[in-house]
């Protein structure tokens, strides 16, 4: 069964500034609590979670003009997964970041989605510091 979770947060910082971090796939572990390492090789990214679990990912889209980043976790525990991060300009000094998790099994959407909620909080903290 399929699950879809979406979180969002408003950040008082320009969309370009936020995108500079979010759009860099090798820096995910700097703003996603619980991801302790991150390596990128072409369109393949491997993250390591706080429990030492490596999870391979495929980068699907890294579109600076739309400020949209999409990736898929390809670990066997997922039948399907698609993560989408959108950075949307609200005004020159404020943006909205939307982090969506669509996956099967649905319970993993809650688990990964919980992580993304924490990531958005940390992103805001860093960008507004």
């Amino acid at each position, binding site marked *: 069964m399929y699950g879809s979770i979406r979180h969002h947060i408003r950040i008082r910082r320009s969309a370009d500034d936020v995108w500079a971090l979010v759009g860099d796939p090798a820096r995910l572990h700097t703003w996603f609590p*619980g991801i302790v390492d991150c390596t990128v090789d072409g369109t393949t990214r491997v993250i390591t979670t706080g*429990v030492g679990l490596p999870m391979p990912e495929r980068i699907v889209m890294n579109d600076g003009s739309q400020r949209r980043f999409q990736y898929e976790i390809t670990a066997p525990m997922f039948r399907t997964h698609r993560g989408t991060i959108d950075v949307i300009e609200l005004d020159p000094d404020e943006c909205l970041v939307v982090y969506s998790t669509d996956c099967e*099994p649905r319970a993993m959407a*809650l*688990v990964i989605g*919980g992580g993304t909620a924490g990531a958005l909080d940390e992103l805001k903290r860093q960008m507004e510091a």
Partner: protein
Amino acid sequence: MGRKILFITTDQQRYDTLGCNGGTIARTPVVDALAAEGVRYDRAHPQSVVCMPSRSTMLTGQHVSTHGVWMNGVPLPEDAPSVAEVLHDAGYRTAIIGKPHFEPFLDPFARFAENGFARNGTFGPHRGFEHFESATHGAAGPLHYARWLASTHPEAVGMFYPVLDGLLEVNAMGGGDTGAPQAWRNEIPREWYHTDWVADRTIAWLDSLPAGDDWFCWMSFPDPHHPWDPPASEIGRIDWHDVPLPAGYIDDATERERVLDGKPRHYRAWYEGTLVSNYEAPLAWAPKTMTADQVREITALNAVEVELIDEAIGRVLAAIRARGWDDDVDIVFTTDHGELGGDFGLMFKGPYHVDGLMRLPLIWRPAPSSGIAPAAVGRPVGHLDLAPTFCAIAGLPVPEWMEGTPLPVDDADADARGFERVLTEWDSDLFGVDVHLRTITRDGWVCTTYLPGHSHDGTEGELYDLANDPLQRENRWDDPSLTALRSDLLADLWDHQPPMRSPLPKVHAPV
């Protein structure tokens, strides 16, 4: 030297599983003796009928809407107040041993402190507990019991029933003799099972304390929550073939479905398997498929687990007596919520505010040195009264942030101090299926109103007469003769129900 506090909780235990509450299947002489020597509460309700919100209420003394753990998977904020912290600050030694569950178990990102201690080989401190030693329903997860079993008896790890299936849903796989969901033959030796481990670790912690210390120890058994997989060596205690069907089970399917149809529509929808509104029941199982023999077998296995807990408590009490502490130890026994247990043909738990889930065993054996006389209390009390009670036992003022009142010692005391009502709330939102209940229990009535959600338009409700319909078969919400009563109960409910914390805390995991 003051009074010490042993706080014993179980998980998902029905009121009627104890001998002192009329139970006839499990033998519970230890807890029955505590009830005989102390205060037995006949109408104790949780503020939520699932684990994380309910346990958060026990720790904070707050309504669910106030502490904000509105469904399983919502972590209790790190800075939430804690009665353990109050007691520790007053000089008490503090420990929680067993199932905590203030934070989600499913935690691959290792974001929650509760799951980090076993991984790191440490034991707290956390939330006011200087010693934090954790266990849950099996050998999985980042908890001390699982690590201990894996390191000392790795051959036993795979003996437990897998609580979750390969899709991380609550497992529907049947077992036992009848194919009942979550029934299982567990070949683990009794002394390795988590019930005895919790008692062993509690005794070890108590033995580590100097005789003169005051202490607060929360001993938290994971059973008799499903899976029903007690050690196989023990299941011969109770032959399920001889177990009577629970009073709340309706053997005739036509009558059972008539009763369900008198309740809000999500009852029948779940029964039929067309709607599973919450994570806590197996997604791939429909209660309609449950046979009477499966109910009997689950009841028997549940009773075996209750007996093992009773015996484990007896060992801990013997250790306390051996230390010479008994005269100054208050013992409080309860559970976080109940179990449907076959009532109306249903099993497990969910958004159903009926006695199977809401009426709890609660016993307070005051320290004999306190001079409090044995009593039975019929007035409604709640979990949010526990933390204030611990403060009162310790001789401390009840902090303003606690929303309960120290438990009454008898009905006269309850009347004098205004124990008129108890509230219970439910909120869940699982992939677009949201359910919201607010319940008041007062004057022998249970009244639940449904807020608008996936399956309800905000007009539905339940109203039960506890004296004349103790099995809650006839929903009188729409009875015109009770319109004034219903209105009065709802007005009282909204007068006392705190608003939900804002912003609404986020769900971080299914459980």
